[in-house]
């Protein structure tokens, strides 16, 4: 099960970066998300797997599909790596990465048979059943107590991203005029910290 899910995820990821049709590519991406969510179910983190499906497939993939269809960039896409001459370089770097990863894994994460617990041997651990928390309980207790500040900051990041996305694509109502936002390099570079933040007196 995990073998087929993992290899399917990798093959779908290859299809994501290889397919020339953006809609197909986004659909392959959805497939990757589903398979990775299946891997997480096998890791016994059920709530995170479901949350993952909701956020990635429900929000992000739909957003991608919306933008692809709206901008209508379906035809005329060039194939991957075409006319760049970048393939040998990329393959070399990839080889270095994979070699390093394999070395790291084999050196530091050798299997430790002493860590196999009772639950792996098919024996019921009554202490776990009696006093255990579900994954959702543990996550909620951590998020709302120890990591509450981080949780709030994550909320602020989402808020800023949402406002930013709206400001970027703002259209003045009633007119067809689109305020084009261009990058003003001199303005951007001549900002300093003392003038960037100020208090509004009211």
């Amino acid at each position, binding site marked *: *099960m995990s*073998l087929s899910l*993992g290899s399917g*995820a*990798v093959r779908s*990821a*290859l299809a*994501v*970066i290889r397919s020339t049709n*953006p809609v197909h590519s986004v659909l392959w*991406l959805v497939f*990757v*998300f589903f398979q*990775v969510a299946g*891997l*997480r179910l*096998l*890791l016994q*983190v059920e709530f*995170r797997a479901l*949350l*993952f499906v909701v956020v*990635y497939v429900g*929000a*992000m993939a739909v*957003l*991608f599909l919306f*933008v*692809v269809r*709206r*901008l209508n960039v379906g035809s005329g896409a*060039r194939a*991957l*790596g*075409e006319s760049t001459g*970048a*393939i040998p370089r*990329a393959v070399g770097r*990839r080889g270095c*990465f*994979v070699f390093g990863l394999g070395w790291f*894994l084999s050196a530091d*994460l050798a*299997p430790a048979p002493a860590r196999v617990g009772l639950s*792996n041997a098919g024996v019921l651990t009554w202490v776990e059943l009696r006093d255990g928390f579900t994954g959702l309980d543990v*996550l909620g207790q*951590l998020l709302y107590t120890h990591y509450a500040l*981080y949780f709030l900051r*994550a909320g602020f*990041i*989402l808020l800023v*991203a*949402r406002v*930013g*996305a709206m400001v*970027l*694509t703002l259209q003045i109502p009633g007119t067809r005029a689109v305020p*084009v936002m261009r*990058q003003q*390099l001199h303005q951007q570079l001549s900002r300093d910290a003392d003038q960037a933040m100020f208090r509004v007196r009211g």
Partner: protein
Amino acid sequence: MLMSRFWTLSVAGLLFSVGRLGLLLNRHSVIRVLRSMELRLLAVNLNFMTHSVYLDDRWGQVFALFVLTVAAAEAAVGLGILVVFFRVRGTMAREATHLRHG
């Protein structure tokens, strides 16, 4: 029975490699670059989750939630920039992002 951590970690590494490959080999379309970024964040997330399960430390899962948040924010802002970029330049090519040349 949990599956082998090596397999999950290799899947995460391979997904990261595929995302990196898509980023390296891609000079034409900004939206493909965004998709590759999503793949890489996905791989990192899976890595955090696997280590969190096998090292029995829940902080990895909490951190994976934050990675998820940042990935969602990145997709929203990136696609917003993409829409504006398409409006201004009329193309999705990554070569057109060099502002100094035109």
